[in-house]
């Protein structure tokens, strides 16, 4: 027999969107409103964050971080855990650019409003630029090289408190310094009486507002606490449902639910396809200690790329290099001398790039690289190479033939780095800023939700995550997700007040 539960508000997902909505609605619990958060991933204890690459990737990421697009040419990284992807990002916290929000052209969504809300979470989550004394050589060389090469280098504000510089942010901070929703918004919500159930996957949402939920058992030898509910299937009734399962999870959930959803559901997927570039310096530098991502160069508006400092782990680094054999091994053995830069292409929503579901209901991401996206990666790679050489690197590893650029190549990067070296399937492209699929807009004819995350035609169903973005944000998305989730929560409070509930 399937167990039944009943709540006033059910939030699906506990990341930047779901965690924020949970916190903002939590005061309603005092008035007798029953709120439930359902999180597909487990809740991890502090000591379980070991920083070991494969162990943590398996525990935290969907498919161990190797979720592939349908044609297999790009991996998408997103977490499944209490706190969602805020557990595994580097804490970089930027507010949405005005030009992007204007271009989105969503009636009722003003840049000023989003900025004000984002600022609230920047303060709440201790967002600030890191002190100079905590900056490592990998980041310092980016600043020096970038400025010498003529780029405007900016510092990332990050949401850390007591950062010890483990460099392991993407594997979950082992020192609990990163202030994701797992450290800030969710604990607050739980203290106020919001119920959070982990290992609880929502399979379907019925038109009568019943959710089919599967709570899974903790497998022997795996990380994370058992679910708060007994394993099994549940029917959960809700008056209001907030889907915040991320840009893959939310569109997939709505697509496999028998709901009269707008036609554009799943469409408009974008993701900032990214390449990791490495360069070899003549002497060891501090790279695997210190916050990994402290600076960036934003050429999104002019050249469709953003460069960010980064530092990855042995396997991720190895797979990101092109080629194989002795030359590949030689670069890997130079690890203590490696500088790294992440190149993100600013893609745009394109026809065909969308989320779908398989017959079994699993998400399938259709994504093809447009010419413009490839050009963004090419221009970004050239810019990164300029920065590496200006910083004193003696050799840059990049998609080229052969895939090594010596200092003598610095003057002919346009010739060495060309689009023909960026054919899909020839290089390791991955993306972690997954956006769109339930885009905001005017009506069901052009979008899935309105500017308050209400699904057109289904006012009891809201969306509160990056799937709301009608197009690429062109920067790191977390503060914007939180700002939009804040609006979704406000809309729910307003509607509840209006109905006298």
């Amino acid at each position: 027999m399937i167990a039944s539960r009943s709540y006033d508000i059910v939030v699906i997902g506990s990341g930047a969107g779901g965690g924020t909505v949970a916190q903002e609605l939590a005061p309603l619990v005092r008035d007798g409103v029953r709120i439930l958060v359902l999180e597909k991933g487990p809740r991890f204890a502090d000591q379980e964050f070991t920083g070991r690459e494969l162990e943590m990737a398996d525990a935290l990421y969907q498919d161990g971080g190797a979720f592939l697009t349908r044609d297999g040419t790009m991996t998408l990284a997103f977490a499944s855990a209490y706190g969602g992807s805020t557990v595994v990002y580097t804490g970089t916290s930027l507010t949405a650019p005005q030009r992007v929000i204007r271009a989105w052209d969503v009636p009722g969504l003003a840049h000023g409003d989003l900025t004000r809300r984002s600022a609230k979470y920047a303060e709440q989550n201790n967002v600030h630029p890191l002190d100079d004394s905590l900056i490592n050589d990998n980041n310092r060389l980016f600043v020096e090289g970038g400025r010498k090469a003529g780029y405007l280098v900016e510092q990332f504000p990050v949401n850390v408190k007591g950062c010890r510089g483990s460099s392991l942010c993407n594997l979950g901070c082992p020192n609990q310094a990163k202030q994701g929703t797992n450290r800030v918004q969710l604990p607050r919500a739980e203290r106020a009486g919001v119920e959070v159930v982990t290992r609880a996957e929502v399979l379907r949402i019925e038109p009568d507002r019943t959710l089919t939920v599967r709570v899974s058992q903790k497998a022997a030898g795996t990380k994370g606490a058992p679910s708060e509910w007994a394993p099994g299937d549940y029917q959960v009734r809700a008056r209001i449902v907030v889907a915040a399962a991320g840009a893959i999870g939310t569109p997939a959930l709505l697509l496999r639910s028998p709901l009269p959803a707008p036609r554009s559901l799943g469409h408009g997927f974008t993701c900032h396809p990214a390449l990791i570039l490495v360069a070899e310096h003549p002497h060891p530098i501090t790279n695997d200690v210190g916050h990994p991502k402290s600076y960036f160069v934003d050429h999104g508006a002019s050249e469709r790329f953003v460069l960010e400092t980064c530092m990855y782990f042995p396997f991720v680094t190895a797979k990101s290099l092109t080629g194989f054999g002795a030359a590949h091994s030689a670069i890997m053995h130079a690890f203590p001398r490696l500088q790294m830069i992440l190149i993100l292409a600013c893609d745009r929503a394109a026809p065909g790039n969308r989320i779908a579901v398989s017959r079994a209901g699993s998400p399938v991401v259709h994504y093809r690289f447009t010419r413009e996206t490839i050009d963004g990666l090419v221009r970004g790679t050239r810019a990164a190479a300029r920065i590496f050489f200006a910083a004193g690197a003696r050799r840059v590893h990049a998609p080229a033939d052969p895939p090594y650029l010596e200092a003598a190549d610095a003057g002919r990067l346009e010739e060495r780095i060309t689009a023909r070296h960026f054919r899909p399937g020839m290089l390791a492209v991955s993306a972690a800023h997954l956006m769109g699929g339930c885009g905001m807009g005017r009506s069901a004819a052009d979008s899935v939700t309105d500017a308050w995350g209400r699904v057109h035609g289904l006012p009891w169903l809201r969306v509160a995550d990056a799937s709301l973005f009608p197009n690429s944000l062109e920067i790191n998305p977390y503060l914007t997700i939180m700002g939009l989730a804040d609006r979704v929560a406000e809309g729910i409070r307003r509607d509840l007040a209006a109905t006298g509930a």
Partner: protein
Amino acid sequence: MTLSSPVFRAFATCVVPEAGGLDTAQWDEMEAIVARAVAARSRAVQRQLALFLTLLEWLPLLRYGRRLSRLDPARRARFLDRVQRAPMLLVRRGFWGVRTLILMGYYGRPAAAADIGYRADARGWEAKR
């Protein structure tokens, strides 16, 4: 076709030449990592992987008169280089998939990480370096 097959070993030592110097226990550790990753994939993907390795083993017969696992290292590398540049996306994807598994198996071992000088530590700046 299994992960302990000659073709997988031939591919692995071509991608990471140092893998040829692993002792039995180290090789087993590498294979276990790869086997775990493969087991987590769908049956369809597992079948594609086995088929791709079979093709890789026999295709060199047409050009070199020998299977991949019997080729000398230089020819093996030349053949795999051609595969990674193949005009067909499906072939390039297959190459990248197996290459990724090999790199995961090799560099996912803590000993390999230490060997290349990777020293990240949860204690960060306070760790002795």
